């Protein structure tokens, strides 16, 4: 077969016309089924992930983007223990997703009563440019998804100024002896160490937590990723890392309901129009008390394609 010749052309030469047609049809079916199978596999994967959460437990898994921090104030708390670690605290709460379909909109009112009123009225006749649209207002069905458990909590992570985590400790000595060696090595000031208050040693895991008497020693040691541990004549490098204590406060699982945001449906015929323009008209209509509305915080119309809107506290 000469290079560059189209395979199909070659096959055509060797097959009768009708045989070649059958060959081409089969080829098309194969391509089509292949594409369909790939699509089905992706849909299955999506659903499997969605349904994966075991009943009785749910998760928040979040990668927090880098945020710039600025100095706010200097404080003098009464509780001395607050000086023994650098604490990072924040609130984390689930955002509940709602899939807004084409022809639907969300509108958030400032007052709950206005939202309830607009829902009670059900049908609203809204003028959008020169088109009159009958819009239905309903509560947002937030709980019709698979996830029912949303979480909200205060998290605090404290990096200790007095303790360090030690790992990769070789398993060469009996427990009590190794504990002594650890204390001896970590109190050597020439290596950055300081007076040791206590040593917790896990022989099996090859790890330990060293608590120092003074704050500041931990910081010094953590400037490097490893530390010299002397065992008889040998020097081993053990890995040091910050010792963290984590706390959750005011943790609560809840199911979200929307009281100030309502769902508008029935705008499918507006679909080719610009979402923002329609949004403005809707906003103006629902701001008028004569239309049963009131102060509007936010409007989002979905006319071009469905979008996922997030509900939060």
């Amino acid at each position, binding site marked *: 077969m000469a290079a560059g010749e189209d395979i199909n052309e070659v096959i055509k030469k060797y097959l009768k016309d009708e045989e070649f047609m059958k060959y081409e049809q089969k080829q098309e079916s194969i391509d089509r089924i292949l594409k369909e199978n790939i699509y089905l596999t992706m849909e299955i994967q999506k*659903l499997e992930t969605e349904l994966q959460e075991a*009943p009785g437990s749910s998760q928040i898994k979040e990668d927090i983007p*880098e945020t710039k921090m600025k100095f706010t104030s200097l404080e003098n708390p009464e509780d001395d223990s607050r000086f023994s670690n650098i604490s*990072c605290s924040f609130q984390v709460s689930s955002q509940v997703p709602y899939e807004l379909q084409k022809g639907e909109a969300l509108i958030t009112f400032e007052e709950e009563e206005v939202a309830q009123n607009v829902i009670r009225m059900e049908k609203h006749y809204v003028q959008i440019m020169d088109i009159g649209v009958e819009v239905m207002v309903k509560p*947002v069905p937030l709980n019709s998804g698979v996830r029912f458990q949303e979480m*909200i909590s205060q*998290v605090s992570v404290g990096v200790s100024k007095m303790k360090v985590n030690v790992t990769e400790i070789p398993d060469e000595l009996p427990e009590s002896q190794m504990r002594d060696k650890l204390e001896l090595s970590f109190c050597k000031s020439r290596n950055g160490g300081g007076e040791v208050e206590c040593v917790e040693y896990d022989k099996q895991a090859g790890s330990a937590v060293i608590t120092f008497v003074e704050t500041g020693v931990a910081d010094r040691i953590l400037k490097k990723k490893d530390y010299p541990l002397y065992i008889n004549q040998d020097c081993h490098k053990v890995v040091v890392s910050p010792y963290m204590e984590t706390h959750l406060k005011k943790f609560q699982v809840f199911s979200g309901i929307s009281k100030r945001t309502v769902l508008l449906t029935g705008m499918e015929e507006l679909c080719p129009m610009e979402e923002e323009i329609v949004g403005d008209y809707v906003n103006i209509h629902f701001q008028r008390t004569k239309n049963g509305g009131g102060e509007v915080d936010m409007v*989002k119309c979905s006319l071009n394609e469905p*979008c996922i809107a997030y509900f939060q506290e």
Partner: protein
Amino acid sequence: MPANNCSNPQTKACFRRGDLLQSLQEEQARLKMRLQELQQLKRGLRNSPQDKVPFPVPEVPLVFRGHIQEGMEVPKSLVSDLQICYPMPGGSALVIFDDPKVAKQVLQQKEHQIELEECRLRVQVQPVELPVVTTIQVSSQMSSQRVLVSGFPAKLKLSEEELLDKLELFFGKTKNGGGDVETREMLHGGVMLGFAKDEVAQNLCRIGQFTVPLGGRQFPLKVSPYMSGEIQKAEIRFQPVPQAVQVLNIPDVLDGPELQDVLQVHFQKPTRGGGEVEALTVVPPGEQRLAVFTTESS
């Protein structure tokens, strides 16, 4: 999957088309069945929400504030009120420069000599490195010792402390079905009470409804199981504050206000690589302070 080779022209010339088509069709049938299975499961869960959670969960009002999904990035949770408290020892100071480049220049010299009339003060400078949480993973599990008390009327004329006290008193009594209360916390959808004994929590959930005296009147309250949270994973990364410089080991020679002035003058001298100082605070010797940092936008 043999189908992967279909893009290869060599394979296209293979005449065992029949086998390939058939196996692809069989594969599709299997995939369709699996998809149907999962869709049914999802529908089932949607229609009977109570199957997913063994007990009703308190409702918290949520609002749409304009956040929509942008591209493929889906932030499922919102992080807010980020605050970092950084302990500072006695005899130290915190200098915040207007320009981060100035801070960088100042930090190039580990030791600084501060000129006074009669002598020089030798101090050390260091950057401020804050531990910022980069990943957080929290999971919830039904608690055997804690319960959630809910059903409070909207406008209760009690302070948080008063309400917690009254609930602890009521549910601390065995005659009410309760027992020793170990922990208590005010939450969005109610109050969490933690008991010393599992049986107490279980018993209270079983009873479910209670009439509790609060501020002179009786109110019907509900007790249900509490899902408690646990941090599965928390990762941090040390991030320097670009405009900040820590001054350490300041000799105890000057008074607070005097020291502040002297430091300000020193760090503003452009000849010494200094520049405009936005803020400068001093920690008196023998004491400690917490420097509080919050997110730039707040």
